[in-house]
């Protein structure tokens, strides 16, 4: 963990990978809703203008057209900011999920790390919204490398729609170039048997740093990347419950309906152990520097460290 931290943009990785895939796969079409220079689908759009549709500030139109293109056999990627895709919940529900068409929604600028644009844009409920839809699968890549592998995976036409959640900020690269994404599988980044921290997105990096700090307090924390939120790696959750007896979840999302909820549900059913959820407590975000807001909302590295330590030392009857 002591090697120099490399930061890379997940959305740039998305745009570049999509453009590279478009070369080989002529069935790929891409839609955006006037945010292509931010979501980075413009890289594809400039290379393949005939297969790129800028639908304007009209997300419902984008989603329905994406559904139609997918029904017609195309491999479809549709992008906008996470918050704006949620404008179209019932359109996704009927025209995509109920229709059983494999539209790939790759959204960017999710969560508080979006920063200065503030609470109107910082969606913190989307993982829950999308996970609740039948047929929909939900992936939150942890870094630029996982983003590329997820996009490669989705470029081979699937049966289901996917929601891939990306962010604005550059995040530390955690995976090796050889990493291969496996749907429904988690990746253990740090082994440990005292307590488990399950996280996705930037919170995995934070958890790893918190785990390093906990080491000096003789707490050996396991840190797992739960990028595949739906389907989720039940086995890894149950194993963590058995091995470590307590689980902390950490997510850049509301504590409702996200990873914390899923982990709690699964351990309740399979192997009840105490779970501590770290996330946004049913509140909106705040304008500010994206990476400073985690400390502001007490979900930063030192908060994860403190909460995990206290939770570890807490006695449950």
């Amino acid at each position: 963990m002591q090697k120099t931290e490399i930061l890379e943009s997940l959305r740039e990785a998305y745009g570049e990978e999509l453009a590279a895939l478009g070369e080989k796969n002529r069935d790929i079409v891409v839609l955006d809703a006037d945010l292509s220079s931010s979501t980075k689908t413009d890289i594809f759009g400039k290379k393949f203008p005939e297969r790129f549709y800028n639908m304007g500030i009209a997300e419902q139109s984008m989603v329905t057209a994406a559904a139609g293109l997918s029904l017609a056999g195309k491999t479809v990627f549709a992008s906008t900011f996470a918050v704006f895709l949620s404008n179209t919940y019932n359109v996704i529900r009927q025209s995509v999920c109920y229709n059983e068409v494999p539209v790939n929604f790759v959204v960017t600028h999710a969560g508080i790390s979006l920063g200065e644009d503030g609470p109107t844009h910082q969606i913190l409920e989307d993982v829950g919204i999308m996970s609740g839809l039948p047929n929909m699968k939900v992936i939150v890549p942890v870094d630029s490398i996982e983003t590329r592998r997820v996009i490669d995976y989705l470029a081979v036409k699937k049966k289901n729609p996917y929601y891939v959640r990306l962010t604005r900020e550059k995040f530390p690269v955690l995976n090796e170039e050889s990493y291969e994404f496996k749907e429904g599988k988690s990746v253990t980044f740090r082994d440990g048997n005292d307590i488990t921290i399950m996280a996705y997105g930037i919170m995995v990096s934070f958890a790893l740093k918190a785990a390093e700090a906990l080491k000096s307090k003789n707490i050996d924390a396991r840190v797992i990347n739960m990028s595949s939120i739906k389907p989720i790696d039940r086995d890894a959750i149950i194993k963590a419950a058995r091995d470590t007896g307590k689980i902390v979840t950490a997510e850049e999302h509301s504590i409702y309906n996200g990873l914390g909820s899923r982990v709690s549900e699964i351990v309740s059913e399979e192997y009840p152990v105490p779970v501590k959820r770290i996330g946004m407590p049913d509140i909106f975000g705040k304008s500010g520097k994206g990476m400073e807001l985690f400390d502001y909302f007490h979900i930063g590295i030192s908060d994860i460290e403190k909460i995990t330590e206290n939770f570890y030392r807490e006695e449950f009857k």
Partner: protein
Amino acid sequence: MEAYSLNDLKPLAKEVRKKIIEMVYTAKSGHPGGSLSITDVLTVLYFKEMNIDPKNPSDPNRDILVMSKGHASPALYAVLSLRGYFSEDLLSGFRNKNSDLEGHVHRGIPGVESSTGSLGQGLGVAIGFALAAKLDHNPKRIYAILGDGEMEEGNIWESMLAASKYHLDNLTAIVDRNMIQLDGFTENIMPLGDISEKARAFGWNTIIINGHDFNEIINAIETAKSVKNRPTMIVANTVKGKGVSYMENNPKYHGAPPKNEEEYIRALNDIEAM
């Protein structure tokens, strides 16, 4: 492909109307009004105009129809079964838990291209089909059937902008202008005014027809095929509940079946006498 002539259409449409009444009466639920108003348009499309083969419903060259007003499922299901996509016997299962004929248009049924029911989505889906056909240089035609009340949905107008931007001359939208929605008359609930004029302002070619006149329906669909660079919107002036005297122009029958045996028989007799 079987060839149907103009003379076949009238008896076929009668048959469709009877099936609609039978379906909603058997189910004791459903939407007869908007099914009866769009019957003639659907009959023309499926029996005369569309390039389709019920024996090969996934033919990549087939014409596509998206029934955006998904509550008119009885009309679409009746037409599809009479056209040979599935057995007419299945119609009696409409809205029954043991049947695939869901209350609103459901994609699992042979011949159905997209699930609909929550309004305002079908035009956008049709646009997706039309974009794909353009990309593939496939001359197939794409149709979207819209309700007039449905045009109050914002997605319709977003999609109209998109169809115009992409010069989708392979797309024809047909509006079932029956002037009635669930709560009452469209011009009282949310005035739509001159839909054709609005569509023209959005860059569409428009045609206004009597939606119960087979010749006018055929001519409008044929004209749309020859228009270049623009999508066409056909505003079909129709009568909600067409063919059943007590249902005609009565908002009550937007979503209610014949109340009793007497109303049921009267409906079938009215249709027979058309």
